[in-house]
């Protein structure tokens, strides 16, 4: 059983030296480091890439990794390294946008429905129904009904993610609603919008941030899966899922077409998950208590 030292109970990252922070949260630091590198790759992709990712070179088809093409070339002779670097853009953009959009929408719906009981019953049934449809199938259905574009993909991934956020926010609201400080605010004549935004919302932020990282990880995976199935990012934009979909035909002769995009994809998701786990341990007081009881 680990005995909590006073230092541990009053953890304040801001006052901690950087090395102490690394030692205490090695996984968070690792996740953050990988993620920052990936964001840098995504932003700087046009300058980091040795070649134009779309440039076709018929004489250089399906070449294995070499000094000139670090990750080899694909069936059209395009440089896989340059394409993998550009693929980071789609994945991270979709991941961050979906995380932001579903968190904001889920927060709004959860706050209101947690407070208004009449609405709550209806909203929760709708959320239950949404959650009963597997996310990938729901996204596939939405995409099959609209023209393929990144925006469609983002909408199609965001909607299935909303119920999880709503449930989380609602559960926090339901416990807070009974608290004395909310009663006090009500009896002082505060209106609903003010109670929700000033008194309730700040208390949902910590679990919400953790949830947002998990949504981000799941959005990156679903985008890749949709693209891999041919229902995601338009084929002219290099994304990791698209690249693996094109490479799958050559699985017997060109392992590099599948391994490198797959590796980057897994690394990004791993980084986001590590960050989420670390944040959960530091932000969620419930979990911290149970961890101390071990």
């Amino acid at each position: 059983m680990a005995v909590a030292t006073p230092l541990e109970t009053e953890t304040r990252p801001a006052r901690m030296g950087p090395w102490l922070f690394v030692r205490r949260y090695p996984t968070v630091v690792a996740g953050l480091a990988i993620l920052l590198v990936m964001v840098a790759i995504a932003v700087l992709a046009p300058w980091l890439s040795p070649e134009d990712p779309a440039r076709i070179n018929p004489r250089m088809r399906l070449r294995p990794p070499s000094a000139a093409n670090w990750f080899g070339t694909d069936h059209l002779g395009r440089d896989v390294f340059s394409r993998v670097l550009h693929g980071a853009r789609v994945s991270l953009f979709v991941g961050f946008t979906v995380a932001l959009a579903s968190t904001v929408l889920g927060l709004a719906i959860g706050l209101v429905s947690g407070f208004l009981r009449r609405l709550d019953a209806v909203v929760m049934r709708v959320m239950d129904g949404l959650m009963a449809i597997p996310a990938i199938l729901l996204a596939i259905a939405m995409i099959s009904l609209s023209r393929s574009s990144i925006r469609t993909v983002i909408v199609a991934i965001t909607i299935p993610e909303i119920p999880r956020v709503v449930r989380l926010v609602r559960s926090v609201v339901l416990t807070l609603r009974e608290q004395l400080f909310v009663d006090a605010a009500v009896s002082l004549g505060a209106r609903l919008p003010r109670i929700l935004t000033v008194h309730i919302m700040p208390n949902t932020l910590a679990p919400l941030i953790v949830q947002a990282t998990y949504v981000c990880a799941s959005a990156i995976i679903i985008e890749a899966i949709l693209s891999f199935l041919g229902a995601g990012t338009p084929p002219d934009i290099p994304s990791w899922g698209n690249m693996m979909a094109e490479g799958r035909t050559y699985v017997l002769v060109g392992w590099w077409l599948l391994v490198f995009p797959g590796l980057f994809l897994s690394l990004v998701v791993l980084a986001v998950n590590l960050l989420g786990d670390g944040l959960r341990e530091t932000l969620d007081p419930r979990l911290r208590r149970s961890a101390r009881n071990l």
Partner: protein
Amino acid sequence: MAGLILRRLASTAIVMTVVALFVFGMLHLAPGDPAAIIAGDIATQEDIARIRAKLGLDRPLVEQFLVWLGHILSGDLGRSIFSDRPVAELVAQRMEPTLALAVTTMLFSVVVAVPMGILAAWRAGSWIDRLVMSFAVLGFSVPVFVFAYVLILLFAVNLKWLPVMGYVSFREDLGGFFKSLAMPTLALGVTYIALIARITRASMLEVIHQDYIRTAHAKGLALAPILLRHALKPASVPIVTTIGIGVALLIGGVVVTESVFAIPGLGRLTVDAILRRDYPIIQGVILIFSGVYVLINLVIDIVYTILDPRIRY
């Protein structure tokens, strides 16, 4: 008890109605004219009109929904736009491989994941625990199809132990059946195993430090009965609930896994339908998968309210 089960059934019916409303509503809420999008870029006006009539888009909305719901409840899932064959028939043809893959994966995952979680909880903080937890994080991070290709490159291309793709029915060749499902099961199972192992560890941890477990130790009971009977039993509610909820994950994964391994199941049917924008098929598959998911969770709920005296709403 009966009232409780009735309430559960009622709420399940509501959830399925909401699912039906979603599936139906999507066709109408989609931006632009769905008939034109389904018909494709080179379609003529007649094609579009034909598809619109086929999907029933030319009638009033409420009437459309009620007619559609009536068909569904009587087992008619509509007709494929591409082949004009009944969706119910297409789905029935493709059911076996999907069911086989889903069931083997579920059994395999539970058999592997629960002991992993128990071991991790029992030796919390040790290297075993860290190994299991690292595996869990990896399992959540490596997408199904990426792991599937790692397996293919390793076991089929390099070592040549297993067939690269395809499905062999158990009615034809039992050995071939298991060989053809080995890699898909492993690939599909990883995320599911991670999920179950993690919740098993967490719920075992909550139980394992309680006084009655210490008492069991003190009176000299062997480790296995303590872990399995005294600890696992009360810890099993969240585990089984998670196994049920994880079915949604499994279903999404089935679609991808079947596509990678060229297994002719419901997933392949769906993916082929995406490329042809054959919405009735996608709609039918969603309804069936959601129905299965809701049903499994309903059964789990009911069984638990009967078996576990602690659960009384």
